[in-house]
């Protein structure tokens, strides 16, 4: 008996570690980027996305992925491989996402992921920027008479997703208000929506963009409303593995290029005609001046391809978030020049 227990423990560990090994990705500290080489060899960018969040990453009936997170991966593919469609999408749950990235199953994680200190510093990840400034909010039934978070009282039950910062923020919030609450955390967003819809909980809490998107899935969306308060900062952005700084730079500047392009009024339809612009910043963006791509081992048209094939940030936001009715108002996700907080370092 004892012997067989031991054998099972050994077998258990062996299979566990087998999973842990996976395939090897970016090498540490090398000047050349292993991830870039592997991506070029494979011919596609390995991108981790959500299991379906309208506006961010969502697949249609034909299996085509769209959303502003998806556009980050498309931008990387356009820069590195010359074709924005050369992306392989892997839908991941909140729980799986970081392991998938650190084990090399994916190379870019664009999955509405909140940038926090412990994630950045502790588990072998590097956040490269922010593509959506979000904040956690609450949704309630209009008939409930709750008009603000100050109307919450002891014993309220709140549904949310497990494995997210939401769960932690919710606790911080209720503790700070000294309210006892019943937390009900589901693994998948669809089950949260169903449970909230059935009345299992009085409020549904997650990122406000998520609330807006999930509200459309309720049986009577008009009977629900999102409370005005925002209880947390949720800067969502793409993530890469730690240790491949070239790849990290490529992803960071692919995103920055989209935002900078909007700032300078460069979009998918006018980009190529701006090659002889008078503004050097615009000329650098469309690859007519400087040798910026060489720093990552890319050609000089990398940023032009991003703008032409994917569009600038404003185009992406309008197409996926505004026109779909999720959040028509850009709020903090407006350029710094227009009263928002989108501000990227200059591409020069």
């Amino acid at each position, binding site marked *: 008996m004892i012997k067989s227990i031991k054998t099972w423990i050994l077998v258990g560990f062996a299979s566990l570690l087998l999973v*842990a090994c996976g395939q090897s990705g970016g090498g540490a500290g090398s000047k050349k980027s292993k991830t870039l080489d592997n991506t070029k060899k494979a011919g596609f960018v390995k991108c981790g996305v959500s299991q379906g969040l309208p506006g961010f990453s969502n697949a249609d009936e034909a299996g085509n992925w769209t959303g502003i997170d998806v556009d980050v991966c498309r931008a990387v593919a356009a820069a590195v491989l010359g074709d924005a469609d050369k992306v392989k999408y892997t839908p991941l749950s909140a729980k799986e996402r970081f392991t998938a990235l650190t084990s090399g199953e994916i190379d870019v994680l664009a999955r509405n992921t909140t940038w926090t200190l412990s994630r950045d510093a502790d588990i072998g990840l590097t956040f490269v920027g922010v593509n959506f400034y979000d904040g956690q909010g609450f949704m309630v039934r209009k008939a*409930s008479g709750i008009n603000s978070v100050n109307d919450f009282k002891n014993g309220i039950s709140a549904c949310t997703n497990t494995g997210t910062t939401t769960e*932690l923020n919710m606790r911080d919030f209720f503790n700070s208000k000294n309210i006892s609450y019943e937390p009900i*955390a589901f693994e998948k967003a669809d089950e949260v929506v169903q449970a909230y819809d059935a009345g299992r909980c009085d409020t549904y809490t997650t990122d406000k963009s998520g609330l807006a998107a999930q509200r459309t899935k309720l049986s009577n969306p008009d009977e629900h409303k999102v409370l005005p308060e925002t209880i947390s900062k949720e800067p969502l952005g793409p993530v890469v593995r730690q240790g491949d700084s070239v790849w990290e730079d490529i992803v960071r500047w692919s995103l920055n290029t989209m935002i900078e392009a909007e700032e300078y009024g460069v979009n998918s339809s006018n980009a190529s005609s701006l090659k002889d612009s008078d503004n050097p910043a615009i000329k650098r963006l469309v690859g007519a001046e400087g040798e910026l791509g060489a720093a990552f081992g890319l050609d000089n048209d990398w940023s032009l391809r991003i703008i032409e094939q994917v569009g600038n940030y404003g185009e992406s936001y309008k197409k996926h978030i505004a026109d779909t009715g999720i959040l028509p108002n850009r709020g903090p996700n407006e350029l710094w020049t227009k009263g928002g907080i989108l501000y990227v370092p200059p591409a020069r």
Partner: protein
Amino acid sequence: MNFKNLKLNLSNKNKDLIPQILTILFLILVVIYFTINAQNNMGNRGISFGFGFLSQESSFDITFSLIDYDGSHSYARAFLVGLLNTILVSAIGIFFATILGVTIGIARLSQNYLVAKSAEWYVEIFRNIPLILQIFFWYFAALRALPLTVDSINFYDISFLNVKGWYVPKFVWVNFSVFIYSLIFALILIYFLAKYAQNQRDKYGKQIPTLYISISLIFGLPLLTFLFGGVSLSFEIPELTQLSKTVYVYRGGVSIIPELISLALALSMYTATFIAENVRAGILGVSKGQKEAAASIGLTKGQILKLVVMPQALRIIIPPTTNQYLNLTKNSSLAAAIAYPDIVLVFAGTALMQTGRAIEIISITMLTYLSLSLSISVFMNWYNKKMAIKEK
């Protein structure tokens, strides 16, 4: 001479031993290889390995806990909460699956056509639908069917059932320990009574009404503590409180969350089908001659079942039923789908996510399930041995 003997030894004993040693060596090498590989890979990616995180503050709350817990406790405590919740739902599941399984199993052998057919239909329907679908069905069907808190189903003004759970009165004890001691004392007395009764039966063929004496002991002794031991019991009845215009909640009492109810329901209804088949097989496995022989020496129907049929049927029933208990325990990990805070949801879910320590947490969780299953196995094997034929 001697040499020949040695050769003979080699071919008999050592021949078996050598492949075994080689296999174990190979396994050890494989484990070492993967450990080193994993360490290298983790090192390359800047991931550290260690169990220090277990003592850190977890900072997330859990809906339902058998022990005192909130987010200021450690991850280790959260693990314990999850483990206890897993054990709770498994124990409830095993209890009801056994009762339901035995009933259905016996019903399948009934002479009554309607009873036998209904039991057969039950088995065929519930064992052929994937468990996860049954869990979803019971959970969302229950949520949709149950009323909102304000129009709860009312049981005699002490217990209330609604979409947020089943609220029952809480027992408030005074001198609870005295009550428990009296219960333990009663159980010890019953044990000796059973020994004595068996002795009397074996020696003098005297029948002592053990059952009635036991029942009066187990109820009588604790009852006496109420009269003389200073024990008292009162109930805290759940009370409806209004939180806002349409939001109500029950305060006080004990709330049994719908996640637990539907998970336990799905697990026991599913596993009962397999246990029912085991019971049927066990009873059919006892030959008719045994019953006839027992009847011919004048045993009553109850005695035949208790003394002749069941001891033999149990030998057939126990081993496959052990498997079902193990399955039920492992299947309880599907809890994560409907937000029942078991070890998979709490520890291999939220805790894993917050700490990012996948390898550590998954190995702890695997070892936990392994030890849970092995404990059930060990217990059932002991019971099986006890029930096995004792050759004299």
